[in-house]
């Protein structure tokens, strides 16, 4: 036991803050001014239509954004993995988005998707010779729920694609080339190799991406905060309730709900991917 004392400061630090967060979050969520314990914050949240909006918006964000990040990462990883030239160079370029702070990318999209005469509007109105005309008038990107959340998601997926790509790439790189060569020799085409060998073998990496990305999507804050101010997600609603609304109790209730939903999603993904994995193994045994 005397050997592990160097661990103690870090352990105390983490344990202290973790306990603080858990206890204070629960305590705050049942406190309203001097009233304790009370369900007033919870009741206020359940009556708040903005909460249901935020819940549905965030759910859509998670359901569409998580697979989108997986697909973007998988696509980029397959391009790098199958590269004919400049593998290192292409990979370095594909990693670039991650080198930018989320706030910077959100600011850039704020500039580009300006509602009056922004670059996106000019581009889509066909003002440049290299791009076809798609719209007739300026679009108010931040004044429409669907558009504002789409632009937020675009920024999020663009910025985080490299993480998904690197995780999947490490999975791909662990596949022995002999396996793929053997399949080629036996006459398997690209599609067969992809669906029968590559995808099953990178499945664990894809599961990791889904787990990490779904957490990220639930708690997303910076892109919707900058780009979709009028259309809250749970993250931005927490900020609004705590700061602007001065309702720490209600903010804590939403924060707890967010934690609960995140954990639930993780369990769900582990369960579903476990089932798919069993199916894959079984189908492999049977064929």
């Amino acid at each position, binding site marked *: 036991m005397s*050997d*592990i004392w*160097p*661990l103690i*400061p*870090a352990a105390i*630090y*983490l*344990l202290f*803050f*973790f306990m*603080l*967060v858990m206890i*204070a*979050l629960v305590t*705050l969520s049942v406190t309203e001014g001097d009233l304790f314990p009370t369900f007033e914050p919870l009741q206020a949240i359940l009556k708040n239509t903005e909460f249901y909006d935020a819940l549905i918006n965030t759910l859509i964000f998670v359901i569409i954004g998580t697979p989108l990040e997986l697909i973007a990462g998988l*696509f980029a990883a397959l*391009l790098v993995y*199958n*590269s*004919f030239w400049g593998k290192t160079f*292409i990979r*370095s*370029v*594909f990693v*670039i*988005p*991650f*080198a*930018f*702070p*989320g*706030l*910077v990318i959100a*600011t*850039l999209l*704020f500039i580009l998707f*300006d509602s009056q*005469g922004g*670059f996106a509007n000019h581009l889509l109105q066909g*003002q*440049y010779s290299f791009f076809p005309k798609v719209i007739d008038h300026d679009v108010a990107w931040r004044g429409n729920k669907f558009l504002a959340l789409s632009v937020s998601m675009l920024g999020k997926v*663009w910025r985080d694609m490299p993480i998904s790509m690197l995780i999947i790439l490490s999975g791909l790189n662990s596949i022995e080339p002999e396996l793929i060569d053997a399949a080629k020799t036996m006459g398997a085409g690209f599609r067969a190799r992809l669906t029968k060998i590559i995808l099953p073998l990178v499945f664990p990496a894809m599961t990791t991406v889904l787990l990490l990305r779904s*957490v990220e999507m639930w*708690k997303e*804050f*910076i892109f919707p905060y*900058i780009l979709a101010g009028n259309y809250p997600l*749970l*993250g931005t609603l927490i*900020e609004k309730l*705590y*700061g602007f609304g001065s309702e*720490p109790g209600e903010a*804590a209730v939403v*924060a*707890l709900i*967010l*934690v609960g939903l995140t954990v639930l999603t*993780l369990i769900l993904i582990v369960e579903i991917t476990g089932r798919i994995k069993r199916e894959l193994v079984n189908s492999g045994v049977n064929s």
Partner: protein
Amino acid sequence: MGYIDKGEVAKKIVWTSCVIVMMVGIIAPIYLLLKYAISDPSTVNTGGRPIPIWPNRPTFDMFLYLFKDREFWAVVANSAIIAVSTVALTSFLSVPAGYVLARYNFPLKRFFLILLISVRLFPDISSVIPIATFFVRMNLHSSYLSVVLAHTLLALPYVIFMATTAFEFVPKDIEEQARVIGANRVTIFTKILVPMVFPSLVAGAIYTFLLSWDEFIFAHFLLDTGGQIQTLTLYLNKNLSFSPPQNILAAISVCLSVPVMIFTFIVQRYMVSGVVSGAVK
């Protein structure tokens, strides 16, 4: 044979076009950010005419304007002070912890690892509420210390993990030989082990610095409460709400990104040398 070649050519064409589309999708936004940062007013406000792809008159005026502004430098200094302090505290806590995790098995190890993962995956937008409330009660909000403590909490799990992996690469024999010669544990740790895992520790330190430099949520909740201290991310956000000219927003964004890009480049080199040194031993 000819048929196979055709297939190969088609494959290469598809692959090359996909790579080009991805590259354009990645590089174009970054180009536009840089372009806006060096744009003159006539390029930004075109009065309905298409925004030029290259500035009418490229200029560094926006940067000069920022660099002459005292508030800007104060904000940069704040970000740097907070980031460097976070690195110091995180390293102090994580390096010994990583060593213990790599070397010893003990009853509560599993519990500690679960704690690490829980802290790492806990939504920051949820944990910020109790932590901000706590610092307000301790009268520590709007202080450097509160942000440094919070950023350390965010960085710690991953950096401990990095340090653990690094120490696992160092063979136990080296320590035992040093002990035979008569070195004590502190000497072994500081003179032998730390230099051997130095590249990984640098990578961890840079990760921590960047995390703190880019961080917005905790800084916003802890500092944007009427205090005097502002970080660079808060400064950018404040400017966004004033809707100033777009070129100044882009210039601040570039300033915020520069350390990140430099450090990402350095980390890549260190990571490579770390991997190589691990392989040699």
